[in-house]
């Protein structure tokens, strides 16, 4: 949901490189985890493909709320397939989005970090609330909302740290403007969290085995 909507050239080359390097490091850790620690089975690959298609499809749609906003289902992706496989999906969706002209190529690394935060935090909260035996809808919805909020925080931090080339906006003005933007985004986060909550609770009802792999502790209690 949070996405750095700036054209190529807004960040200096040095900062584009920094965010790309950070993204590659995180991606490498996720790939190491998937290949050496927790190997993925074929069913997860199918689920990941579905998440990629859904995320890419919905991300390009400008929703006419509050003047125009986007959803991208990264939190749903994180909850369903976990952050490590979610990292690959996030990268693919960001690259494909840049390929069709939605966001700059130089922003892919930074946007990967923003979306990765959403997926990881949503997953973490979902698992944590599962330990408190909170119902599936509420743990998925709350996880999504907090994940999207922190995604917005990372988005603001990345822009403020990088700075924007060729503008004379002060740090305070930029922080104020971006905070307002993030605040409007949170209204959409509320809608995305309800959608995610319904999708996850539906899957929990019809195919609980898929979610049991995500929350083995909560699953074992059932």
């Amino acid at each position: 949901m949070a996405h750095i909507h700036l054209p190529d050239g807004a960040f200096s080359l040095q900062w584009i490189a920094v965010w790309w390097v950070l993204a590659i490091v995180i991606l490498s850790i996720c790939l190491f985890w998937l290949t050496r620690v927790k190997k993925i089975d074929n069913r997860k690959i199918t689920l990941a493909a579905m998440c990629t298609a859904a995320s890419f499809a919905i991300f390009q749609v400008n929703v006419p709320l509050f003047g125009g906003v986007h959803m991208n289902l990264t939190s749903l992706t994180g909850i369903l397939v976990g952050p490590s496989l979610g990292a690959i999906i996030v990268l693919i969706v960001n690259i494909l989005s840049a390929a069709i002209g939605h966001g700059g190529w130089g922003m892919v690394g930074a946007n990967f970090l923003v979306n990765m935060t959403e997926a990881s935090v949503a997953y973490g909260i979902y698992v944590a609330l599962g330990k408190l035996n909170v119902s599936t809808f509420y743990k998925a919805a709350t996880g999504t909302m907090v994940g999207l909020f922190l995604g917005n925080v990372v988005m603001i931090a990345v822009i403020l740290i990088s700075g924007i080339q060729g503008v004379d906006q002060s740090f305070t003005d930029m922080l104020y403007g971006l905070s307002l933007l993030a605040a409007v985004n949170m209204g959409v986060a509320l809608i995305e969290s309800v959608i995610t909550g319904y999708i996850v609770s539906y899957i929990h009802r019809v195919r609980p085995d898929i979610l049991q792999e995500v929350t083995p502790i909560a699953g074992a209690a059932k």
Partner: protein
Amino acid sequence: MPEPQNNKKLGIIIFAVVALIFLGVCIYAYVITGSQGIEERFAKAVGLPQESDLGDSGILGFTLEGNHLSYLIILAVILLATAIIYVKYKV
């Protein structure tokens, strides 16, 4: 074996508190900024020159970002790949 009772009340309370805070903040920010597109909001926030958006109004206000043809081609390829993976591996 009976299914354990979900901690529904706790879930509702946590979700409602977070949702109300974010909704309040969102409405407040929207009142201050007014109706703007996402690109316009970004440009204004960071001080970039704003381009007037004269694009199509889409279907019921829903519009597509980027190149529409590329979007459809890439989406078709992803869906085809997903279908092939599904047939091969199932879920």
